[in-house]
């Protein structure tokens, strides 16, 4: 009985709780005309894996580490290339009021690591796959957080003489 309730809990939470409950991280924005070098600088400075590309205040694309490797470096393009030529245009986005399970579905369907969170095309956050894994882990803390740092608890040899 207990067992059923707990696992039902998580399933229900995934459906009912919204993306805003995960406190998506602040998005870092660039204009579509800025060069890739600016994106690289921003991603390094802020220690993030992706930046959002905007025209005025509206989102037009996303630029990630993967785009950097695939669309810029391996194609032999220079870092002066404007963002609009190497970003992923029209990324799949979520609304803060969307359910967490729908965000997970979007992520898995497209194989995305990051989803922009937008309201009326205006970016308000980034939701990462790590954040979602963290959210799931919070549902069974004792299984994960109460662990020793290494799986084998005993020492292979006796200490001392």
């Amino acid at each position, binding site marked *: 009985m207990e067992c059923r309730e707990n696992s039902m809990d998580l399933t229900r939470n995934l459906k009912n709780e919204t993306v805003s409950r995960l406190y998506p991280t602040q998005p870092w924005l660039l204009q579509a005309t800025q060069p890739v*070098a600016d994106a690289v600088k921003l*991603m390094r400075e802020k220690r993030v894996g992706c930046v959002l590309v905007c025209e005025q205040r509206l989102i037009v694309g996303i630029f990630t*580490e993967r785009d950097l490797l695939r669309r810029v470096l391996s194609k032999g393009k220079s870092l002066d290339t404007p963002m609009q030529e190497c970003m992923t245009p029209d990324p799949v986005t979520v609304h803060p009021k969307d359910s967490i399970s729908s965000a*997970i579905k979007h992520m898995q369907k497209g194989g995305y690591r990051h989803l922009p969170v937008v309201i009326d095309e205006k970016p308000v956050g980034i939701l990462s796959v790590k954040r979602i894994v963290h959210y799931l882990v919070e*549902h069974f803390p004792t299984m994960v957080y109460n662990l020793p740092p290494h799986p084998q608890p005993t020492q292979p040899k006796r200490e001392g003489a």
Partner: protein
Amino acid sequence: MICPSCCQKNLPGDDVCRHCKQPLTSFDRPQPENQVERSLMYDQVKTLKQKPPVTMSHSATIGDAMALMVAANVGALLIVDEVGRLVGIFSERDLLKKIVGDVADYVNLPITQFMTPRPESVATTDTLNFVLQKMDAGGYRHVPVLENGKPVGIISARDMLRFLTRLCKEAGERGASAL
């Protein structure tokens, strides 16, 4: 910790009961409360379907690594020595953080200069909660799976997410059908 057989009160963390010497360590371990927790606690890494790892020799160059990452469509390469033991990991993140914009003509530089050496890894016989712990607490996106020091798989955050959501869904369905 109260001994289950003789009711002697022991200090928390005692290995054996002070009165009857019965071992107590197993009672300190968390008890799984549902299907998902049980799976995390007892299922071993090898039960998780993993992609074969994409490996590269430690004598390769950054250019080789970039070409392989694009060709194999992966975000991280495992770097191995002559006998196939894991010595490092090289990911898109290393490329962004250590190379692009900083280093000119990086294509012919050795990979060992920029890889992350001795990454955290798990064994095939470790349980899944250890993978989650490393991923969540360490903030790693990829955790290599080793057997005798040699990589046999790699688990990404997305693999783990897929596994967890499937587990939750199954548990939910089982719960719903039992009602």
